């Protein structure tokens, strides 16, 4: 006997992500999901970004790691509200799922925020698969990682709305081919904006900050 099902396996997560998206829209908050491999400099990029956009853009952060509150502690020093999610309590998940975001968001006063940045767990594979209710996805790639990462992890670069190429201050010391890396990103996602930055020296931040502010304001204007 055959039982017909025809259902998305991740339906429970997708439903929760939909609920999150609706909730964030009601609260008039733009949500950015930031993803990358471990050590690409997401937290440092965020710390420098927060310094440049607050208090004009009222921002909160949810940050995910398997263990430790190191990232939330660093982010809190910039003066924003930062919530740490540790997935070791949930079996050491390698990505943030929609239900974790729903729970974490309850600890933020969203009424007072314009922007919520979710710093996903460092991993170029799994986080790309899970909708968490964000408005946009950003992938961070650092120049110490290799130009061919977009070709090796196409789903991540295909899903992302923008790409940030970090640590460009290190280019003189590396064999990294910047043109090749951008070409590879565009091969996987032809129209994606790529921002070349250094979170350490703050070089190249202007276009990225402009994109972020415009995205936040565009959402508020539509509502």
């Amino acid at each position: 006997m055959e039982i017909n099902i025809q259902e998305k396996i991740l339906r429970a997560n997708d439903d929760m992500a939909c609920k999150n998206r609706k909730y964030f829209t009601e609260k008039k908050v733009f949500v950015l999901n930031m993803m990358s491999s471990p050590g690409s400099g997401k937290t440092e990029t965020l710390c420098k970004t927060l310094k440049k956009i607050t208090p004009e853009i009222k921002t909160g952060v949810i940050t995910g790691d398997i263990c430790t509150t190191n990232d939330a502690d660093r982010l809190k020093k910039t003066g924003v509200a930062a919530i740490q999610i540790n997935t070791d309590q949930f079996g050491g998940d390698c990505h943030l799922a929609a239900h974790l975001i729903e729970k974490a968001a309850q600890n933020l006063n969203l009424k007072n925020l314009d922007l919520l940045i979710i710093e996903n767990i460092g991993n170029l594979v799994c986080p790309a698969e899970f909708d968490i209710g964000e408005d946009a996805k950003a992938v961070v790639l650092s120049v110490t990682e290799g130009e061919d990462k977009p070709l090796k992890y196409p789903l991540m670069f295909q899903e992302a709305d923008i790409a940030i190429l970090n640590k460009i201050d290190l280019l003189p010391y590396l064999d990294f081919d910047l043109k090749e890396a951008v070409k590879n990103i565009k091969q996987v996602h032809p129209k994606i904006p790529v921002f070349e930055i250094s979170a350490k020296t703050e070089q190249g931040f202007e276009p990225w900050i402009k994109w972020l502010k415009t995205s936040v304001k565009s959402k508020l204007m539509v509502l």
Partner: protein
Amino acid sequence: MHEMGVAMQMVEIALSSIPKNINNPRIKKINLKIGELTAIVEDSFKFCFKIITEDTPLKNAKLIIESVPVKAQCQNCNHTWDVKNSVFTCPGCEKGTVDLISGRELEILSLEIEE
């Protein structure tokens, strides 16, 4: 890796789809559709499935996976093509915005129950 989480969600859907009026049901096959762009490693997925179904009616069920190729369409010239080697640039006009038509599927299609 997230294969365990995906396998657990799939098992939950499969178990809840078994009609309640069948005594000691045994599931022979589970038919699935998995797109080639999803980040699922088939062997890991099958391994996780085996572990978590040990004491359930799904024990020893065969996973029949229909692999879905990655297809894209160009918004500029409407050209549709099979994406190979992660090349999403339109081979027709090389400049359009690209829509993904298939390759992201992660679906449970049906169960086959032993009679």
